[in-house]
C-alpha cells in the first residue's frame, strides 16, 4: 500500500477525491456473506448523480446490507465500489464521508444533549489548536440553514425536538460535509404523514441541488412517489433496476416475492376448529401493540406476518410475559395468567423460541448441554443439586431427535452452526413438553437444510397437539406452514387469512395496508 500510487490502485481517503457529484457511484460485483447466508450476491448497480434512487425488497432481501456497504459500515467480500471508473476503498463510515458519501441511519444518531448546530458540525467543528471557534461555528450554521430553507433554531437542544426535525438535523449534517451521495435507510419508517411529506420535499430539494440520494425503503407507495429509479432486491440479488415511472405497485410486489419454497414444507394437516384454545391474548396493549387479540388452538399453527415495526415481534414477546402490558390479559389453557413473566408462562407450559438466538436465546460460552436444560433444571435436580446422569440422558434423547451431533454436547454452543444453535433452542423448548409454543423468527439466518428440519419439527409438534404461534418475516414460511395467518399493521391485525386466501401477495398487501392502499385485503 505504500508503493507510489498507480493509476489503477484503489483510491484511499486523503487523496484528491474523484468527483462523485459528476460521475456517480458504481457497484461492481459486490458480494457479502454472513456465515452460510449470501446477504448480497454479485450486485452490479449504478447510482447516477443528481437522482433519487430507491432500493426496495422484503425483510432480509439485502437492501440494508447494500446500504451499509455503500456507507462504509460493511466491507464486501468480493467486488468493489468505483467512482469515475476508479475503485475506491471505503473501510469505515469516516472514509465514505471523505469520499462524499453520508449516511442517515434508521435510528437517528444525534447527541441529544448538544444543540442543533453543535450536532450539525459534530466532529467537523471549526477550531484552532483544539479549541472550538464558537463564532465561526455560528457563522457556518447561519449559512447552512439559510441555504437549506429548514426552520430550525441552532441553539435548541436536540433532545427537545420531534423526529422530523431531528432528521432535518441529520440532513444538514450531511450537507455541511459536502456530501454528494446521501444514503437513507428507511427514513420515513418512524415519521407521521406530514413529517414524511416534509422529508420527501427535502429529499427532492437535495436532488435538485445535484446530490444523489439512495433511499432504502419497503414502503412501495413512497418509492413510487419519490424515486427516479428503483432497484428491486430479492435474496441478495438484483431482480431489476428500472425507472420508477415504469413500475406499478403490482409490478414491484411481484418482483419482491420470493421463489417458491413449497417443496421444503411438510404436508399440512387441517386443524380441527373444535379443539380447545391453549394460548390466548385478549386486547393486548403494550409498547408496539394496540389492543390485539389472538387465539391458538391445540394442533394449530397460527402464522403472524407483518413488516418490521408492525408489532409482530412485540406480540410474541408480550404473550411470553416479556413485555409489560398496559392492559389486556393472557390465558393459558383457559385460565388467566396474572402479572405474566417468562418464568410463569414456562411453568404453565408455554415455550418460546426467542427472536434473536444471540441476544435473548443462548449463553454462547456455555455448553450445549447447559443451554438445553436451563429451563428444566428443577425436573433433573434433587434438593437443588443437578443429577448429572439424568441431565445427560435427557439431553441425549432430545438432541438425537433433533439431529444435533451428540458427542459435542459439552462444547460451547458458540461452536455450532446457526441452524444447530437454533435446534438447541428447540431442544430447550421441547424439554418441558410444552402445551403451546411461540416461535419468533425460528429460521432467521439459517441455511435451507436446517430450515427444512425445523419446519418438519414444527409440523410434528402441531400434530401431537401443541398449539404453535409462528411469527415470521418470511411469507413463504407462513403460507407453507400455517393453518391461518394474522397480518399485523401498526400493532393491530389488519387481515386474517386462511385457506386459499393465504398467498404471499395477499400478505404483502395487507402488511403494507395504509402505505399501499387503505382497506385492501379484506374484500377483493
Amino acid at each position, binding site marked *: 500500500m505504500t508503493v507510489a500510487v498507480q*493509476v489503477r490502485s484503489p483510491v484511499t481517503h486523503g487523496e484528491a477525491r474523484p468527483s462523485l457529484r459528476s460521475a456517480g457511484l458504481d457497484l461492481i460485483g459486490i458480494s457479502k456473506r454472513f456465515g452460510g447466508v449470501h446477504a448480497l450476491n454479485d450486485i452490479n448497480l449504478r447510482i447516477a448523480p443528481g437522482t433519487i434512487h430507491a432500493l426496495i425488497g422484503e425483510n432480509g432481501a439485502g437492501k440494508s446490507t447494500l446500504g451499509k456497504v455503500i456507507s462504509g459500515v460493511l466491507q464486501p467480500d468480493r467486488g*468493489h465500489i468505483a467512482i469515475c471508473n476508479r475503485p475506491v476503498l471505503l473501510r469505515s463510515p469516516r472514509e465514505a464521508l471523505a469520499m462524499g458519501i453520508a449516511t442517515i441511519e434508521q435510528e437517528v444518531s444525534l447527541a441529544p444533549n448538544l444543540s442543533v448546530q453543535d450536532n450539525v458540525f459534530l466532529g467537523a467543528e471549526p477550531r484552532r489548536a483544539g479549541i472550538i471557534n464558537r463564532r465561526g461555528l455560528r457563522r457556518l450554521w447561519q449559512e447552512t440553514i439559510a441555504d437549506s430553507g429548514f426552520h430550525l433554531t441552532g441553539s435548541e437542544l436536540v433532545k427537545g425536538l420531534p423526529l422530523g426535525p431531528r432528521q432535518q438535523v441529520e440532513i444538514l449534517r450531511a450537507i455541511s460535509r459536502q456530501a454528494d451521495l446521501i444514503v437513507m435507510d428507511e427514513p420515513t419508517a418512524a415519521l407521521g404523514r406530514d413529517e414524511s411529506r416534509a422529508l420527501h420535499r427535502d429529499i427532492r430539494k437535495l436532488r435538485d441541488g445535484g446530490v444523489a440520494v439512495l433511499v432504502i425503503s419497503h414502503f412501495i407507495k413512497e418509492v413510487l412517489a419519490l424515486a427516479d429509479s428503483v432497484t428491486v432486491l430479492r435474496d441478495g440479488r438484483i431482480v431489476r433496476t428500472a425507472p420508477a415511472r415504469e413500475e406499478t405497485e403490482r409490478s414491484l410486489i411481484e418482483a419482491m416475492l420470493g421463489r417458491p419454497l413449497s417443496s421444503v414444507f411438510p404436508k399440512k394437516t387441517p386443524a380441527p376448529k373444535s379443539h380447545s384454545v391453549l394460548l390466548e391474548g385478549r386486547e393486548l396493549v403494550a409498547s408496539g401493540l394496540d389492543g390485539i387479540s389472538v387465539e391458538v388452538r391445540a394442533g394449530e399453527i397460527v402464522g403472524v406476518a407483518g413488516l418490521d415495526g408492525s408489532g409482530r415481534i412485540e406480540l410474541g414477546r408480550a404473550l411470553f410475559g416479556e413485555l409489560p402490558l398496559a392492559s389486556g390479559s393472557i390465558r393459558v389453557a383457559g385460565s388467566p395468567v396474572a402479572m405474566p413473566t417468562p418464568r410463569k408462562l414456562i411453568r404453565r407450559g408455554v415455550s418460546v423460541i426467542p427472536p434473536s438466538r444471540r441476544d435473548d436465546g443462548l449463553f454462547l460460552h456455555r455448553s450445549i448441554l447447559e443451554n438445553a436444560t436451563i429451563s428444566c433444571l428443577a425436573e433433573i435436580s434433587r434438593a437443588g443439586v443437578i443429577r448429572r446422569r439424568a441431565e445427560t440422558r435427557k439431553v441425549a434423547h432430545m438432541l438425537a431427535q433433533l439431529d444435533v451431533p451428540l458427542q459435542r454436547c459439552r462444547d460451547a454452543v458458540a461452536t455450532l452452526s446457526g441452524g444447530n444453535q437454533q435446534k438447541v433452542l428447540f431442544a430447550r423448548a421441547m424439554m418441558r413438553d410444552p402445551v403451546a409454543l411461540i416461535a419468533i423468527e425460528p429460521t432467521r439466518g439459517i441455511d435451507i437444510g436446517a430450515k427444512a428440519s425445523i419446519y418438519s419439527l414444527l409440523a410434528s409438534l402441531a400434530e401431537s397437539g401443541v398449539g404453535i404461534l409462528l411469527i415470521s418475516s418470511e411469507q413463504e414460511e407462513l403460507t407453507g406452514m400455517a393453518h391461518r395467518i394474522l397480518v399485523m399493521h401498526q400493532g393491530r391485525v389488519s387481515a386474517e387469512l386462511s385457506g386459499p386466501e393465504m398467498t404471499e401477495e395477499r400478505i404483502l398487501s395487507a402488511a403494507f395496508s395504509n402505505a399501499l392502499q387503505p382497506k385492501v385485503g379484506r374484500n377483493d
Partner: protein
Amino acid sequence: MISSIRSDKHGLRARPALSDVPKTLRRSGIVLPFLALALVLTITSSTFATQANLLNLLDQQSSVLIIAAAGTLVFIAGGLDLSVGAVYALAAVIAGRIAQHEPVVVAMLAGVGVGVLVGFVNGFLAAVLEVNSLIATLAMSFVVTGVAALVTSGNSITLYNRPSYGDLAQTHILTVASSTWVALLVVVVLGLVLWRTVLGRHIYSVGGNPNAARVAGVRVTAVRMTTFVLSGAAAALGGLVDSSRVLSAQSSNGGDALTFAVIAGIVVGGTSIKGGEGAVWRSFVGVIFLALIANGYNLLGLNPLYQQITLGALILLAVGAEPAARVITQWRSLRRNPPVDSPVGSDIHGQSFIVPEGT
C-alpha cells in the same frame, strides 16, 4: 446453499482456531505458572516446602480465600463487590463488641448477620434498582467503614479476656488451624454450588446473557441478589476468622487493601470480569498464587519494592492476554483479506460500466 447444508451436517465450526488459543490458555492458564512458581520456590528456598511455612501461608490467606470464593459468584453473575473490605471490618468490630458481654456464639452470628444485611442492601441496589454494582458497592463501602469507626469510636477492641473467641481460628485439627479448615469448607461448598446446583447454573446464565436468562425462566434479580448476600456473609466470616486469630478487632482492618487482594486473586485465577465464566477453584489458585509471590519475596530476601510491580504485571497479564490476542487476530485477518479485491480488471479503464440488469 448446497455447501452450507453439507457443512451443517458436520456441525460446522464457526470459529477459526486462532481465537480459541486465548481461551484454552485462560482455561488452564493459571495452573501452569502456579506449578512453575511452586517448583522454583521449592528449589531455591529450603524453608518454602516445609509444613510450617505452607500451613502458615494457608492460615494467613484463609479470610481472603473465603471472601474470594463468594466474590467469584458475584463476578460470574456479572457484578462486582467492592464493599467486602469494609464489611470484613464491621463484622469483626460488632462481633468483638458483643462478645465482650454476651456469649461468643451470639456475637459471631451477629457478625455474619451484619454481612448478610449489607449484602442485601448491595443486592437491592445492584439487582433491583440496577445501579452499577461497582458504584453501589463502592458507596456502601464508605458507609460501612464509617459505621465500623462509629462502633469502635476509633479504638481497637481487645478480647484477650475472652479466649473462647479465638476458637474459630485457633483450634488445631490434625495440626491444621481451624481458620484453614473454615476456608477450605467455604471454598469447597461454594465450588460445588457453582458446579453442580441449579443456583450455580442460574448464576452462569445471568452473567452470560441476562436477557436470555430471563426468557429461559431464570429469576435474574433474585439470583444476583443471592450472590451479593453470599458475598456479604463471606466477607463477615472472613473478618470473624481474622479477629478470632488475633483476639482483637479494629475498624481500620481489612479495607481497600483486602478488597483489592480479593479481586486480584479472582482475576488472576481467570474468572472473567464480564461475567458468565469462571470457577471457584480458579480463585483459590489465584489467591494462593499471589500469596506465593509474597512468600517467595520474603523467603528469598528479594527487594520487596519489586513485589508490587510483579503483582500488577501479573494482573495485567491475566486480564490483558485475551484482548491482546483478539486485536492481533483482527490485524492478521485484515492483512489476509484486504477490504477490496486487489486485482482490478483492465476493463476498469474501458469507459463504460454498463450494469447488467437482472442477470
